């Protein structure tokens, strides 16, 4: 005969507190969603001539913006992910101990630079720097559709904006990856090395599988930042209301967040609703991307210390 387990007061109080915290998040998100939906309805049902850019309906208005957002974020992550993993590996496993700590500080610091400063750096330093490169690419490799001309004279293209986004996102991703790589169990690492594995094999066998879910978390955080980044893109990009893949031209698809930043101050009436509605669409796009990512992770079992 077993006695029924006593439930301690402390346990009950603590677990309830954690549930309440979770509920607060649910409530906040629900509130944001409700706000977005209510403010968006007038724009969603609007007809011909009422929406900005002479759009016949809302989907025509928001389509190019969605394309621009996803395309810019995709390019940014394409640059940032391998670089972040590389830097994090370098800091955690290749660099000498003292150097790695300093490097860790510097990278963390860069996560704090305001997006406005990234925007300023983008237009003052990066765009003029890459414009000759774009010119060269357009002149010599212009037969590739991605590099088709006419080349922008100022260098403020979606490729430049993606580079700025990548630079913004790298510190966050690197910090998380670094923490996770450092947490890899030293016993496993040393066992691998003792058996004669090279450093790369050791990393491949004991660090990366351990860190897989951490890397995906880092990528999700980076993606979240890249999708929602407002001011840096608004300042650096030369936007136009189109959909295209060309990377080097002067007319580029705009992102939703940058579009809101650009138009909101001067918007009145239905334009405001249209902008909020585009914010709702961004919300939904992030949701879908996250669903996709979660599905991808769940197909591989992640190694973790706690019970899964």
């Amino acid at each position, binding site marked *: 005969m077993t006695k029924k387990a006593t439930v301690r007061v402390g346990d009950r109080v603590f677990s309830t507190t954690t549930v309440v915290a979770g509920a607060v998040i649910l409530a906040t998100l629900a509130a944001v969603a409700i706000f977005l939906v209510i403010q968006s309805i007038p724009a969603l049902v609007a007809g011909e001539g009422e929406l900005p850019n002479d759009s016949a309906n809302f989907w025509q208005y928001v389509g190019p913006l969605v394309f621009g957002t996803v395309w810019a974020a995709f390019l940014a992550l394409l640059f940032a992910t391998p670089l972040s993993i590389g830097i994090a590996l370098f800091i955690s496993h290749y660099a000498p101990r003292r150097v790695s700590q300093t490097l860790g500080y510097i990278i963390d610091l860069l996560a704090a630079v305001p997006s406005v400063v990234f925007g300023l750096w983008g237009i003052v330093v990066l765009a003029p720097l890459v414009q000759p490169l774009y010119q060269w690419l357009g002149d010599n490799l212009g037969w590739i559709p991605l590099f088709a001309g006419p080349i922008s004279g100022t260098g403020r293209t979606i490729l430049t904006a993606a*580079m700025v986004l990548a630079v913004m996102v790298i510190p*966050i991703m690197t910090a998380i990856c670094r923490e996770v790589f450092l947490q890899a169990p030293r016993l496993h690492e040393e066992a691998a090395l003792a058996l004669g594995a090279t450093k790369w094999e050791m990393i491949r066998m004991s660090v990366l599988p351990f860190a897989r879910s951490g890397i995906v978390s880092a990528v999700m955080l980076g993606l979240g930042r890249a999708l929602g980044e407002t001011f840096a893109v608004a300042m650096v990009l030369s936007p136009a209301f189109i959909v295209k893949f060309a990377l080097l031209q002067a007319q580029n698809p705009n992102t939703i967040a940058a579009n809101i930043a650009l138009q909101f101050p001067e918007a009145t009436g239905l334009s405001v609703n249209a902008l909020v509605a585009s914010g709702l669409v961004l919300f939904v796009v*992030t949701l879908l991307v996250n669903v996709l990512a979660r599905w991808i992770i769940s197909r591989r079992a992640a190694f973790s210390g706690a019970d899964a």
Partner: protein
Amino acid sequence: MTTTAPEAEAAAVGGAPGIHSPHVPLTGGTLPRGTTWMVLAGGWLFAGAFFGLLWAAGITTTFSLVGTVFFGTVLFDLVLYVISRIVEGARRAKDRLVTSLVSTAFVIALLPLVSLIWTVVLGGMARLDVAFFTQSMRNVVGEGGGALHAIIGTLLITLAAAVISVPIGLLTSIYLVEYGRGPFARAITFLVDVMTGIPSIVAGLFVFALFALIAGPAVRNGFMGAVALSVLMIPVVVRSSEEILRLVPNELREASYALGVPKWLTILKIVLPTSLAGIVTGVMLAIARVIGETAPLLLVTGFTFSMNYNLFDDRMMTLPVFVYTQYTQAAGVSAQASIDRAWTAALTLIVIMLVLNLAGRLIAKIFAPKRGL
């Protein structure tokens, strides 16, 4: 079992395929020490010579340093891999390749970051004077003035945002890792992911609408800014602490339960201190994420020239809004003065983050238990 490995090894060490050498060296050849640097230098020299020839022949107008370094490095990666493969074997060659790739990635990624810091420092030197840190912009036209009102505003608002979001975020991640099993936990995980994607300007619009409902549309104060920032901070805190908490080995928890310690005490006294360093990094990351946010603060906290210590009353100035407005309002006769103030404010923001980071690491070092094996 013992015959296949030596064969593979022999084949990799340049032996002719198909010949089974009975005497197999247990160690592969090793490249001499310093080979890496020599090949790197060689690669750069070669690329330099190539671009130099292009310049001399008049095909390019200037000597391309960037091209030299880039192609030299690529050449180095290739040549080192090939040489190592021949001398040392496939496994070591791959190892060297990864080392060189990782180092190259590091250098490439560091270049824009260094350039950014350099630009900010260079631009910010102009107004690094006492006046900048002890004055506000009240009644200042043109030159002079300072950013004290913005600095105080940023510190107060970020502190308030942290006070709101760290408990909520940390408790949520504890729930997800320690307690959550069912649909509620899955829903929270999913929604936190979604929250990471809220654009900062939408968070600002939301807080604006919320407070307009409660207190009327004219309300602007620092507290609204703090709420908008915590909407952005919470997912970062949850995500990063959840990862760190998951990495705490189960053995520690089980040992604690075996000794009769209740679950909540285990979490407070064992799990949290063990992961303290990671959690502090996560909190620092979250603070870094929001300390530079301009869009929501522009909307809900407003714009003022004067000092304001009260979070709940009237507009407050913050550093990112200060940088943005000084830069965009730079016009007329004293445009350069505004631009100088903008860069110095950006530099101040980075220095504040540096100090906070160091403080965080100090806290982690003092309070975390000593790491064993």
